[in-house]
């Protein structure tokens, strides 16, 4: 029980590091995809910017926003994770990939925080694909 708790605190510390020192925080001025959403009930907000290369793969992804550690750290992780992936791959990406990376067990309330960035990314990608077809 105690070890489990320590492991969780360790994982939380990783999240905290992403939260405080997100390498992908910022704006991409000439982004191909810009998407934004918020969780009204907790006030979390995430905006994702994606710049694609000529093969429609993610050259760079960044995010801005504010809110709880989970929502912001997950945005930081996600924008790192999707680098190099094609928009088609992103459109099929499973949320489990992001949840596994977060690693901390999340209850029904916090899972919404964790998946806010994922939802924002999906929305942007699907809109982009719909527009280009």
């Amino acid at each position, binding site marked *: *029980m*105690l070890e*489990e*708790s320590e492991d*969780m*605190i360790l994982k*939380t510390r990783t999240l*905290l590091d992403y939260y*405080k020192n997100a390498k992908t925080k910022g704006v991409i001025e000439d982004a191909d995809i810009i998407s934004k959403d918020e969780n009204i*009930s*907790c*006030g*979390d907000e995430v905006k994702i910017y994606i710049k694609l290369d000529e093969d429609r793969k993610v050259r760079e992804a960044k995010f801005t926003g504010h*809110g*709880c*550690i*989970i929502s912001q750290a997950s945005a930081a992780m996600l924008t790192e994770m999707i680098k190099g992936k094609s928009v088609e791959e992103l459109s099929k990406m499973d949320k489990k990939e992001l949840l596994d990376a977060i690693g901390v067990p999340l209850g029904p*309330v*916090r899972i919404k*925080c964790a998946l806010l960035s994922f939802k924002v990314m999906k929305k942007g990608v699907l809109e982009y694909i719909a527009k280009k077809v």
Partner: protein
Amino acid sequence: MLNVEQIRKDFPILNRLVNGKKLIYFDNAATTQKPRQVINAIKEFYEKYNANIHRSIHTLGEESTKLYEKAHKKVADFIKAKNWREIIFVRNSTEAINLVMYSWAINNLKTGDEIVLTIMEHHSNIVPWQYLQRKGVKLKFVDINENGTLKMRDFEKLVTDKTKLVAVTHVSNVLGTINPVKEIGKIAHDRGALLLVDGAQSIPRMKIDVRDIDADFYVFSGHKMLGPTGIGVLYAKAEILESMEPFLMGGGMIKSVYTDNFTWNELPWKFEAGTPNIAGAVGLSAAIDYINGVGVDNIFRHERRLTEYTLEAIREVENVKIFGPLDTKNRTGVISFNYKGLHPHDVSMFLDQLAGIAIRSGHHCAQLLMRRLGLVATSRASYYIYNTIEEIDIFIKTLKKLREMI
């Protein structure tokens, strides 16, 4: 004084470990834990008396009917109602308010009529009334002062001849403010309006006398006062209940049924259609016995002591801002706060992970109040009879540790 150590022995859940630490349960405004006496009463009901009520002419049927009626009487005595028939069992406060809306308001209010509420109401005492806006009923909101008390002069201004109902919470679930409901009731009655009091946060910790308050409607939930979930109470004056039409139709609420009509049953059954939560009523009854045994005044004093201690100790914690009255004269043991630089959800998570402390975070179903305070969410610790000064020390110590997290 409460014998807290003795009381704690009655609550099996307090032995639970959370993240390797002994559970510290500070989420009592959301729901309280249940003493063995309540758990056993429910168990005993199912093991010895279980039968449907009112109709079965066999021993179990008669015993369960008696127990269910007795629960109404127990509640009536507890809140000093004139007659036990004024006690309607529902699922919770929310359902009680909905009952008043569907059975009384919808039939009695018309375009141009007004309802006066306060900005500190729980959504359960706002949203049902918003349903009447489609009928042209106007809602008006009383504001709060900087210290989290109601602006009493707003009542004088907002309650007019057009006002048909003043619906107000007895105690704020966010700020802990105790509202002067008796005084508010006078203003309402002077102008011909009825008074509905949301007692969800007051009944677990304050002596309630519905006739002294002169409440026309008083609602509360069992689960916030040591009882089980799924049982709540609507109290209303008998003459008002007699004039109201039920909004749930079916078995139990009728006297006789013909192909083209039916006649209503007597109070309170008229409003309790279908097989009710009999075991829940038995559990609530046991909860009232428990509270009476401890003494409501003792509970109030105990919470005040914990609150005073917290308000003093928390001043030493940097980055913490408290909302609500800073003195304990007119407040209960609900402490809403924010930690600068940390989202309330994160504060909750860290307290849970580091020390097994359960607090609430979010908008607490009071978005109007949150907006009024310029916030999206707060953290909230709320106390009850089994909480101790030692637990608060751990809470304060853990809050101090959060500095390292940001």
